[in-house]
Structure formats: C-alpha cells, structure tokens
C-alpha cells in the first residue's frame, strides 16, 4: 500500500465526513448520492494525478498552529479596538503609509499565512508581494509597527517545519 493509496483513502474519508456533517439527512437515497459523489471526486482526483505530480503539502506543525491561531485572535482584537477608536473619533487621526516588511518564511504556505495575518489584523494590509518583502499599507503608521510585524513574522516562522515547499 503506497503513499498514493493512503492519500486517496484519506481524501475519501475527509469528503465523506464533510458530506455527512453538511447534509444532516441520513436517508438511504441521500447517503447513496453522497457515496456516488465521493467516489466520483476521488476518481477524478486520481485521474488528474497522472497529469502532474503536484501534491498539496502543509509544512506546519499542528499544535503550534493552534497556538498561533489564538495568538492571532488576540492581535486581531487589539488591532480592532485601535482602528475602531480612529473611525469613531470626530477628527480621525490618520497617518497612512506604505512600507516594506521583510519575511523569513521558506514555504509558500507560511508566506500566505503571514500575508493573510497582516491583512486580517485591521490597520495593516498587504498590498503587494515581492521577492523577500511584502508591501504593507498601514492606517496609523508608527515605527512600532515594524517591530510588531517582525514579531508576527517570527511567530509564523516558528510554526513552520523545516521542509521548504
């Protein structure tokens, strides 16, 4: 039993679980339709695998990722409050600025997580990605932002496993 079979069976189990959770109707007809859909999708995936050997890999450690998720929630809450104060204050003290933030993630997934985390925290926003740095737009820029973003960068790099993807 090779790695490919394991992947296909894992995909089938995942899709079946998704179907069962989403439908919530456990009648023979609906379950049969679900089984047919799962088999069809797995067959198509297996066929397309012969076109290219491109596999989705997640070079992230699961436990550290969950920790990062909760850390990110705290960051989002804090940033939300800061931006809410700006929007609600009558004068709206804005010092907007576009600046470059270097990233240290090796894998594509890590870079995507870092860029999306920057965008998800209100007040900062990834505008452009380039080799070695992101262009980030900030609503209320201060030099501390660079320190905060470098801290976030270190957090994202910490959840990556060594394998470069």
């Amino acid at each position: 039993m090779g790695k490919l079979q394991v992947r296909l069976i894992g995909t089938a189990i995942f899709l079946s679980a998704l179907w069962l959770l989403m439908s919530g109707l456990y009648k023979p007809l609906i379950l049969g339709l679900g089984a047919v859909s799962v088999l069809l999708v797995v067959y198509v995936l297996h066929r397309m695998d012969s076109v290219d050997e491109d596999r989705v890999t997640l070079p992230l450690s699961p436990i550290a990722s969950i920790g990062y998720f909760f850390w990110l929630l705290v960051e989002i809450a804090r940033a939300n409050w800061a931006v809410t104060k700006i929007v609600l204050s009558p004068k709206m003290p804005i010092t907007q600025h576009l600046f470059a933030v270097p990233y240290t993630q090796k894998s594509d997934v890590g870079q995507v997580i870092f860029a999306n985390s920057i965008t998800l925290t209100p007040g900062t926003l990834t505008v452009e990605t380039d080799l070695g740095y992101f262009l980030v737009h900030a609503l209320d820029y201060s030099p501390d932002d660079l320190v905060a973003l470098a801290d976030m960068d270190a957090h994202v790099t910490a959840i990556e496993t060594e394998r470069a993807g």
Partner: protein
Amino acid sequence: MDMIVEVLSWVFIVSGSFFTIVGSLGVLRLPDFWTRLHGMSISDSAGVILLILGMAMQAGLTLITVKLFIILAFLFITGPTSTHAVANAALVSGLKPRSDVPPEKDPEFNPNPDSK
C-alpha cells in the same frame, strides 16, 4: 451554565453588531480608498468572528454549529484574500496611496525611489 452561555452569546452578538456598524461607518466616513480598506477589514474580522461565535453558542453542539464554523473558516481565508485582491488591483492600476510620513523619518528603504 445555561445562563452563562446565554449571557456570553448576547455579548458576542451585540458586540459583533457594533463592530459591523463601525466597519461600515468606516467605509462610509474615511477619506480615501486606501483608508476605507481598513474600515472594511473591521467588519470582515471582528464582526464576522463575533457574530458567528454568538450564533454558534445559541445553536449549541449541533450540526448547525459545524456549518457555522465552516462558514467562519471560509470567510477567514477569503476575506483577507479578496481585500488583498482589491488593494493589489488598485495599486497595479495606478491608484497610489498618499503617505503622511515624511521620507526622512521613514526608517525603511523605499522599494521604488523613482516614483516619488
């Protein structure tokens, strides 16, 4: 226990509604396109997370909660992606943001100095 869940879901839903209105107010009130993006990201992050958490607490441990969390995960990934897509399209089309920080105070290097 039921009481705590009830109160918590009240808090989540009311504060989620508050942040949604604040975000929309930001989209309406902020002075230019680049700042409006930040207003939208309030209702995209805080509003969505708090409202869906509040609804999930009302639903309890059922399949509805699973569905709510699937919606949350989806919005969590696509929200920043579409914000980035809009911002990037605007930048590529030539809508440059204005900078309020004088260049001599900027500690970072400027990636395209000729465009200043």
